[in-house]
């Protein structure tokens, strides 16, 4: 168990460092990942918006899009960093909790 505790602490430290994944691309002017452009970004690249894409691209409104509050794309880096860390902690809890429950459920249904 102590081994696991050490690994969980490591994950919390990674969460606190996660804004690096926001700041470094911003400082070095690196844009979206290849193939993950927004409708606008793609329009700038190819000069039009693919019709099928326009219909389905915004099919889902995530509560924390891109690990930030909705509509805060232009917020200061400090503020974005805060939400990034909070998203990381929330994601760790959701992934850890979800997988643990799934694995427990699988092991119970095996008996």
């Amino acid at each position, binding site marked *: 168990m102590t*081994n*696991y505790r*050490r*690994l969980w602490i490591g*994950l919390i430290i*990674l969460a606190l460092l996660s804004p*690096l*994944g*926001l700041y*470094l*691309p911003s*400082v*070095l*002017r*690196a*844009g*979206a*990942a*290849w*193939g*993950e452009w927004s409708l606008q970004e793609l329009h700038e690249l*190819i000069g*039009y918006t*693919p019709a*099928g*894409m*326009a*219909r*389905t*691209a*915004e*099919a*889902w*409104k*995530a*509560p*924390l*899009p*891109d*690990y930030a509050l909705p509509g805060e794309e232009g917020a200061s880096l400090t503020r974005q960093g805060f939400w*990034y860390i909070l*998203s*990381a902690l*929330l*994601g*760790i*809890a*959701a*992934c*850890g*909790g*979800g*997988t*643990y429950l*799934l*694995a427990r459920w*699988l*092991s119970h*249904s*095996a008996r």
Partner: protein
Amino acid sequence: MHIPDGYLGPPTYIAAYAACAPLWGMAARRVQAGLTARQAPLLAIAAAFSFVVMMFNIPLPGATTGHAVGGVVIAIAAGPWGAALSISVALVIQALLFGDGGITAIGANCLNIAFVMPFTGYAVYRLLARPLSSRTGQAVAAGIGGWIGLTAAAFTAALMFGVQPLLHTAPDGRALYAPYPLSVTVPAMVLEHLLLFGLVEGLLTGLVVYYLQLSRSARLVGTVASEGPR
């Protein structure tokens, strides 16, 4: 490499879901068969680890970003089927809560990131871990597995992007979904992962495996490596 909504046409994303369904079933059965009380927390940590690793966007200055996944180190610690299950959970949470990767593309993204990556990388690791049996050798084998595994996932994602213009082009020549052909998608995605993001993945994989061997978690790595895939 998280394919967003709107980039894949319905035939592709439905086929990807259909391909994932039996693989998810198999992963559930394999994990169930090998599940001991100790493994539920391991899989939970694996999913959380993968989630947070994917938040570290690595810049290609002036151009684009990418990230590591941790898929191969998870496959080494929890078996490739355990990796498939835990990374799938992370990808679903990313899509639902954070809009990272599309809802329609969950099947496609799981195929690339939760299946292609851990299985390819784990196979490379197993192949190299025999001749490279020292502690450093194992870490190097794992690192090469991570590098190849992430690049393989980028390759299959590039295939999915690249077939869209073949399947869906309007009469006026405009694409309906992802616009770039295979001749663009494959070099772009494979090269950036082969030369940068995959190397970061490899470094991360090697270092974590080295650490797990040093610490008492060595059993995690040792048992799987000696018992074979679960």
